[in-house]
């Protein structure tokens, strides 16, 4: 069993910005817009914005909302699919024998968003970029708690966007872009624990869609526990009573 604290968190999706927005939506899940509006995500300074794609903007919007960019906090950036849309457009350019966009190429790597963030805030701490098949949330928290053993705080960012049409028949994902950023701390905030549980008791395998929203239900206080089953194991993240 591992214990940690959550000092602060922020999450964003089209139309869902404040904690109250998430709470009421999680209780009544109506369809939401598949893209952010043109006027959203304006917290990011213009020079950084122009380097970010539709995947990176929400991720850094929530990170900047936490206000830890002045501290050198190690970070874990997790996205199951990364910028698959951008990678596909680069492959299409190659297929047509056209020169590839240098900006597109640099941004298509999985640690691109983390790299832009750390350059922007001159953060020289460790950066980890995770792309977990299943159990993205649990793997991200596990990695972050691991890093908490040598750091006072760890920033964990989980973000994804819908796959391009071409890939959708092969994989599930939430039908809208979202990003969640959490500051895990050794000493400050709400106490949580992460532990392995007997997987025989748990029904079906989890997926990103279920796990990400279960994590948000936990953060907003709608639930006090989430369980994720993947790769033959099962893990629980629980809120610890004071």
């Amino acid at each position, binding site marked *: 069993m591992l214990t940690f604290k959550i000092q602060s968190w922020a999450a964003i999706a089209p139309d869902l910005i404040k904690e109250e927005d998430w709470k009421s939506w999680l209780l009544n899940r109506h369809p939401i817009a598949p893209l952010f509006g043109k006027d959203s995500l304006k917290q990011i300074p*213009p*020079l950084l*914005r*122009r*380097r970010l794609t539709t995947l990176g903007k929400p991720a850094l919007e929530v990170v900047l909302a936490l206000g830890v960019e002045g501290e050198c906090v190690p970070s874990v950036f997790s996205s199951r699919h990364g910028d698959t849309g951008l990678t596909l457009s680069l492959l299409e350019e190659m297929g047509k024998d*056209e*020169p590839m*966009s*240098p*900006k597109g190429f*640099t941004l298509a790597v999985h640690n691109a968003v983390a790299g832009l963030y750390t350059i922007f805030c001159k953060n020289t701490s460790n950066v980890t970029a995770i792309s977990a098949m299943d159990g993205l949330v649990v793997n991200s928290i596990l990695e972050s708690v691991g890093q908490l053993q040598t750091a006072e705080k760890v920033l964990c960012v989980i973000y994804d966007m819908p796959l391009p049409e071409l890939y959708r028949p092969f994989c599930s994902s939430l039908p809208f872009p979202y990003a969640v950023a959490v500051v895990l701390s050794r000493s400050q905030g709400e106490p949580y624990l992460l532990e392995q549980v007997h997987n025989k008791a748990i029904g079906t395998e989890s997926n990103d869609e279920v796990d990400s929203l279960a994590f948000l239900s936990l953060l907003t206080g709608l639930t006090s526990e989430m369980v994720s089953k993947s790769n033959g194991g099962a893990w629980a993240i629980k809120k610890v009573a004071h």
Partner: protein
Amino acid sequence: MSELHKEIKKMIIDCLDLEDIDVEDINDDSPLFVEGLGLDSIDALEIGLMLQKKYGIKLESDSEATRQYFASVNSLVALVSSNRVN
């Protein structure tokens, strides 16, 4: 400002996503890199690619001449007007 000056400024704004800058904000003879607009090496590569796609101009990536062409909008205009093939 000539039509070509406008066209090149618009190209820079569009291909580098300078969404808060207008054509009028860019001076013809101000430096584009580090000072002035504050562009960097990835921007230079992106502009190089646009010159190739739009005007058919191919540049050596690390020659002194290329550095001079990228100094300002005026020098890019001079390059394009004397070398464009399309």
